[in-house]
Structure formats: structure tokens, C-alpha cells
């Protein structure tokens, strides 16, 4: 039996940076719900239903801040994420089909 040396073809998954959670705060009386639609058909309707259900569970009125991606194939920009993070108290994002 002959031994040979072979090179690994794979690349280890990059390490995931651990990020500290932002401080949890009490929601204001009228919170802003951020909604990020991935642009798929009926994504808006589905997310609206989730917002309505969320408001019902909270038992209070909510405002909605919407962001719709022009294509599901791209992630939102860092700037868009920052703006949404500033404006919204809770964010619901659509993923997949």
C-alpha cells in the first residue's frame, strides 16, 4: 500500500463574530414596527398580517416603517439597516419564498 499526500480542497467556515445584544428597553406606548419585505409576491400581505397580529398581542396601536427590497437576490445596504435600526423598535424581516 502506498501513502500519498493530498491537499484539502475546502475552506473552513469563517469564524462568526459574537455581537453583544443591544440593551433591551421597554417599548413606548406607540412603538414603530419595522418591516423589511424581500420583494417576493405576497410578502407585503404576509408581513402586514404579522404586524397586525403583533399589535394585537401588544394590545396597543403601532406605527409601521416599511422597506421593500427591489430584488430578493440582494441584501439591504448597511445604510438602510442603520436607518431602520434607528427608526424602529421591532423589526420583522421576510426571508425565502
Amino acid at each position, binding site marked *: *500500500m*502506498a*501513502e*500519498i*499526500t*493530498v*491537499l*484539502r*480542497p*475546502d*475552506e473552513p*467556515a*469563517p469564524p462568526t463574530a459574537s455581537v453583544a445584544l443591544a440593551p433591551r428597553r421597554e417599548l413606548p406606548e406607540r412603538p414603530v414596527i419595522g418591516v423589511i419585505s*424581500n*420583494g*417576493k*409576491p*405576497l*410578502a*407585503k400581505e404576509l408581513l402586514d398580517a404579522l404586524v397586525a397580529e403583533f399589535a394585537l398581542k401588544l394590545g396597543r396601536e403601532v406605527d409601521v416603517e416599511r422597506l421593500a*427590497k*427591489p*430584488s*430578493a*437576490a*440582494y*441584501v439591504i445596504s448597511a445604510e438602510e439597516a442603520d436607518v431602520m435600526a434607528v427608526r424602529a423598535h421591532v423589526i420583522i424581516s421576510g426571508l425565502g*419564498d
Partner: protein
Amino acid sequence: MADSLVMEELDVQEAFFDRGWTDGLPIVAPTPDRVQAMLDLVLADDPELLIGFLPARGRGVTLEKAAINAVMAGCRTEYFPVVVAALEAMFDEAFNLHTVLTSTGGAALCAIVSGPIAQEIGMNARHNVLGQGNRANATIGRALRLVSMNVLGSKPGESDASSFGHPGKFTLCFAEDPPPAPWEPLRRQLGYFEEDTTVTMVPVEGPHQLAQQLTDSAADVLRSFATSIRHPTWFATGKQGHGALLLGPEHAGFCLREGWTQQQVREYVHDQARVPAAELVAAGVHLEENAQHDMHPDADGKLATIRSPDDVLLVTAGGEGAGWSAWLPAWAPTIHAYRATRRVRPAGEPLPECGPEGCIVPWMR
């Protein structure tokens, strides 16, 4: 230098299968000398040189990892510059590689090679051009898939979410059969020099073979092809897509004999592939509203299946027979991903050093 393993030669296949490093077929053992021969060909002083980087995955492809996977795919050393150019094209922002490798649509990484290097390395452009039997075609395309799996983490059931996939995901690579004058080869159509060799990458569904054998009318041939292109269940129908139209020698010959220019062919196919919205509805297709694809018809009630004439990539290929051509539809409309082309750097022409985020390679000289 990549990490290495020492094992019994007879155990290599099973060891690679067990680690999930193959596409389901046996591989050639990537020994250091085989890999080094490929790196020497592209004058890679630094095997860690990045060909490209995928921010969404935090992963990049180095020359060495590309060479390892090319060896595994069965590439001969002289194929490696074509593999590198294809990878450079895949990292073009327009190609949107992350989504191409992730989508449930299951796209193949189609590589179309145009130019003298295709002939020098013995690629097939004629009979069975999309099928088996040619080592360069088979292994260059396979190398791209192995890189995607092993280096970029695109594995079925993980970040490759293909619902079905198709056989072209093993390999889909071929050469252009240069068209008779006055038609120009693909690289010239795309603005490159005659002496260049280019690789154009298109993320595609499975090829659709097109038969037209009872007419020599170019308009009839092209109109029937356009009808197939706008088939209701093609994902991009009515959504401004793109793709590659491979004209076989008979069909290209009909066009040439009647004096059609390549631009006229593209314009005619684009126009004839526009689909009446009512035809889609009658076929059971629901038109998207308030979503990513604009499916509001034009004034004449039609929707563009191909965004513009330039989005028909016109390629001559295939062998003589009864009259066959093929349509390779991009797996998704142009808003999601697009084709990309790079010039093949001939053996001995070094790659540029481009820093930690990989090369932004000029796409045209």
C-alpha cells in the same frame, strides 16, 4: 499552503466522499505536485492570491484552492487559465454569485469559451456540444462547481437550496464554434479583440433543445424558437430575463444566407419572445403585482420575456444534423443576476495582485 492529509492511495476516493468534498463522482487526488503545476502555469508566486471574495459568505477563493479543485475535477494543467478566468467572471458583482449559488431555482454555472485557447486546449464546439465526451468541456465546468461547493460552502441541503437542480449543475461548459463572416464570434460581439479568448458565465436553467427541421426560412426558425423561449413556465417569462441562444449550423446558415445580421437576429428574437399577458393568464400563470417583478404589460398587452435585444447572447455551436439549436435561459430575470465575461490570461501572463478583497479585474482591454 493548504493543509494536507496523508492517506493510503486506495483510500482517497472514500475519504473525499466521506468528507463531502466531491460532487458525487470520483475525483483525481490533489497532490501537491499536480496543484503546483497549475500554479506555475499562471505564474502564481503567491498561492494565497485571491481570485475573488464573496462578502455575503465571508469567503474567498485563492488561486491554490482553485487549483486543488481543478485537479480534483480532472482538469489538465493547461485548462487552468480558463478556470481562473471563469472564476473571475463569477465574482463580477453583476453575476451575483451568492444568490446564484443559493436560489431554490438551482442554476448551473454555464461557461462559454470564445477564442483561440478553446481550440488549443481541445474544447468541443460542435457535435454533442452540451453533452459528454470532451475532457476540457467536462472538467472545466466541473471545477467551477467543486470550487463553489468546497470553498464557498455551496452544498445541497445547506446553502445550495436548489429545489430540483439539473444535470448542468455537475458541469456546463463549451466552446463557441466561430461563425462564418460577416458574423462575429462572441468575444468580438462583447467588445474584445479577435486574438483574445474570453469566458462568459451565465447562470442558467437546464438547456432547452430546439428543433426546426422542415423549413429553411430564418424568420420561421427564429419565431418558433421565440415561442419556446416565452414558454409560460419558464421562470423569467414576462419578467425581463436573458439567456444564451445557441444556433446550430443549419439555423445560423439560414440566417446568414438571407443576410440577417446578428443584431437583427437578437432584435427579432427579443420582439417575438414578448408574450401577451392574456396568454400567460390563460395558461394559468398569475401575474405578479406589487412585488419585485414588474408584470404590467406594455400598451400592446405584451410583456418582455427578454429585457432587450442585447440580452440575447448569440452563440454559434453544435453539429450538423437535421436542424437543432438550443436555448439556455438564465435562471432568473436580469434584476437578480446577469452574465459576466472575462479575458483568459494566457499561460505566462501573471494575475494582478489585488489585495485582501480579491481582484477587480478590468472586463475589457
